[in-house]
């Protein structure tokens, strides 16, 4: 449902509402939220939706199994990366645990010629775009600051400074419009980033220029330790109304709903209707990153409430109930998952440290006298050690 149809609703939380960061209070269940687009209940029941059913009407059992496979493999990759951080192979990891449906659903809605602008947690979207998962690990291992060619998969480098990429996405979309192409752009960000000025400015620019961009906000309820109440007093999707484009809240743990809503938003963009804000209501099941300790600011009950709405379990229930997948499928996927984990593990361990001179590489496209000078000084300094050893 769009903002237009829900504009008269009251904010769900008043400004005076106390944070639920205490150890006991569970959040309101998204499955009972009338503002939420949902096609699969947490129990895996398919529910009808007059507005969005048509965007997944033709989906085949094979494609449904594909979505399941994407989510399972993404979760397996993510778990492997967390383990690799614990083993000291990665300096840091930002887990997507719990957000698989939001990322796979939206990622699979994109077309090859669309362009994706991620944050640093879009491992599932990267997977959908065909980025080799091992390439995502270079920056977390500390061997580069972004190890893939963005134009190979139309998947920009991860952006760590919160919200910056929404402006890049908007500019890219303005370029698409200038070119007269019918591609679209999708910009990922989170509930924390929604407070950034750059996100507000990207809403303004995209609206003014009617840019073909979808703003996909994964509201995972937590910006490190700060709950969404510290970012907003209205549901985030309602912000779009003030900028003059539609906003919609979708069950971010429902891969089918995320797929449908994102397809709808991308189609709007392609047909010249401009930007859309999608708020995928989900939950960050893990820590912000491997450096974080959520036990300092949130309780287990909240997490357990969200575990009951797990995106993978709910699609599995649906696949089984509708006889779209058999034991053989799940067993084979288990083997594939383990093989992926092994491949990622081995690739990371084999990842070489960069050459020392990489410091000076690509600082400029056309070169710079000072970089040349300092590279030469560095080389002479390094060579001085070689001389000592050789003496």
């Amino acid at each position, binding site marked *: 449902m769009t903002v237009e149809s829900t504009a008269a609703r009251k904010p769900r939380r008043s400004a005076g509402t106390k944070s639920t960061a205490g150890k006991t209070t569970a959040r309101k269940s998204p499955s009972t939220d009338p503002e939420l687009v949902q096609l699969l209940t947490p129990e895996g029941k398919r529910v009808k939706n007059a507005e969005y059913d048509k965007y997944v009407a033709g989906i085949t059992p094979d494609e449904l199994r594909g979505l399941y496979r994407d989510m399972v493999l993404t979760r397996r990759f993510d778990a492997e990366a967390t383990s690799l951080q614990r083993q000291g192979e990665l300096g840091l990891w930002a887990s997507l645990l719990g957000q698989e449906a939001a990322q796979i659903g939206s990622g699979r809605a994109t077309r090859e010629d669309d362009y994706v602008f991620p944050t640093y947690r879009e491992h599932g979207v990267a997977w959908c775009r065909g980025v080799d998962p091992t390439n995502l690990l270079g920056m977390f291992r500390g061997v580069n600051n972004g190890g893939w060619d963005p134009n190979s998969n139309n998947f920009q480098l991860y952006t760590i400074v919160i919200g*910056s990429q929404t402006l890049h996405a908007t500019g890219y979309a303005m370029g698409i419009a200038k070119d007269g192409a019918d591609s679209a752009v999708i910009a990922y960000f989170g509930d924390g980033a929604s407070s950034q000025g750059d996100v507000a400015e990207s809403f303004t620019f995209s609206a003014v220029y009617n840019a073909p961009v979808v703003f996909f906000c994964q509201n995972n309820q937590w910006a490190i330790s700060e709950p969404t109440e510290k970012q907003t007093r209205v549901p985030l999707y309602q912000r779009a109304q003030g900028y003059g484009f539609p906003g919609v809240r979708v069950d971010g743990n429902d891969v089918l709903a995320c797929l449908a809503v994102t397809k709808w938003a991308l189609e709007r963009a392609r047909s010249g209707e401009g930007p859309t804000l999608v708020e995928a209501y989900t939950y960050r099941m893990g820590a912000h990153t491997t450096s974080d300790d959520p036990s300092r600011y949130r309780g287990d009950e909240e997490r357990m409430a969200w575990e009951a709405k797990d995106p993978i379990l709910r699609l599995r229930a649906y696949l089984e109930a509708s006889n779209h997948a058999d034991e053989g499928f799940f067993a084979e996927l288990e083997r594939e998952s383990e093989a992926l984990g092994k491949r990622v593990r081995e690739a990371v361990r084999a990842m070489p440290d960069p050459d020392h001179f990489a410091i000076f590489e*690509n*600082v400029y496209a056309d070169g710079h006298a000072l970089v040349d000078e300092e590279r030469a000084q560095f080389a002479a300094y390094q060579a001085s050690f070689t001389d000592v050893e050789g003496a």
Partner: protein
Amino acid sequence: MADKMALAKAINESLRRALDTDPKVLIMGEDVGKLGGVFRVTDGLQKDFGESRVIDTPLAESGIVGTAIGLALRGYRPVVEIQFDGFVFPAYDQIVTQLAKMHARSLGKVKLPIVVRIPYGGGIGAVEHHSESPEALFAHVAGLKVVSPSNPSDAYWMMQQAIQSDDPVIFFEPKRRYWDKAEVNTDAIPGPLHKARVVREGSDLTLAAYGPMVKLCQEVADAAAEEGRNLEVLDLRSVSPIDFDSIQASVEKTRRLVVVHEAPVFFGSGAEIAARITERCFYHLEAPVLRVGGYHAPYPPARLEEEYLPGLDRVLDAVDRALAY
């Protein structure tokens, strides 16, 4: 052909040429369309090239630079205008954390050929935030190039070269010189973008400056000549990279160096020049490298700016002090 034109007009002509020759070039900024910019630098460009290429933007500097980055990723070559020096800071994050680093972090896969035009400097009696010289804040950032022309011919050609550069270029325009006229030969490139130029030969001391202070240094050299001092004036033209080889060559001849800029002396480009020239020319120098610039104070109200900015007497005083060693 060679015409006499004002510095602002020279930039206008240069932008017009770029729009004409490269369909990927875009002009973006606040009031750059119908109005032609508050200094009329983009005058007539929207009329001739349309709203799709000469774009009036919302009043949001971070948004201007951020969307320009996206357009560059799409293959465009945006030339963005920041209306005044003091308004660039909302865009500073996009410039420093995104624009400057994208080429390196993409391992050279992504180029961002963006020019950020900033009218800068004082001397026009403006209100607060309209007279600052923040070039050192950009020169300090690897990945950016920083240039500032001092005359119409350089303004024309350096803009051509900045737009053709595959690196982001911060283009500081000396607003107090916008109306100064000189001949511009639009047929012959005068030299590389980042090379300094000797604008007056001399033997007793080198004055190094860029942008608005080059003209002042020429006036200082004239005044000093009346007292029998023969000063060399070097127009640096580029603040990142700085052409240290040309400064070194000059200082090895004159043995004395005074650096002049409007920006505050503390951590200014003059500090970097002094340090590096001291390293390079230690045995040639007869005096410490001296700097003349703004004070470590907020840019003052217009009625005080003459006291704050380097002027003829203050630079001459530094020349005297350097020659006294």
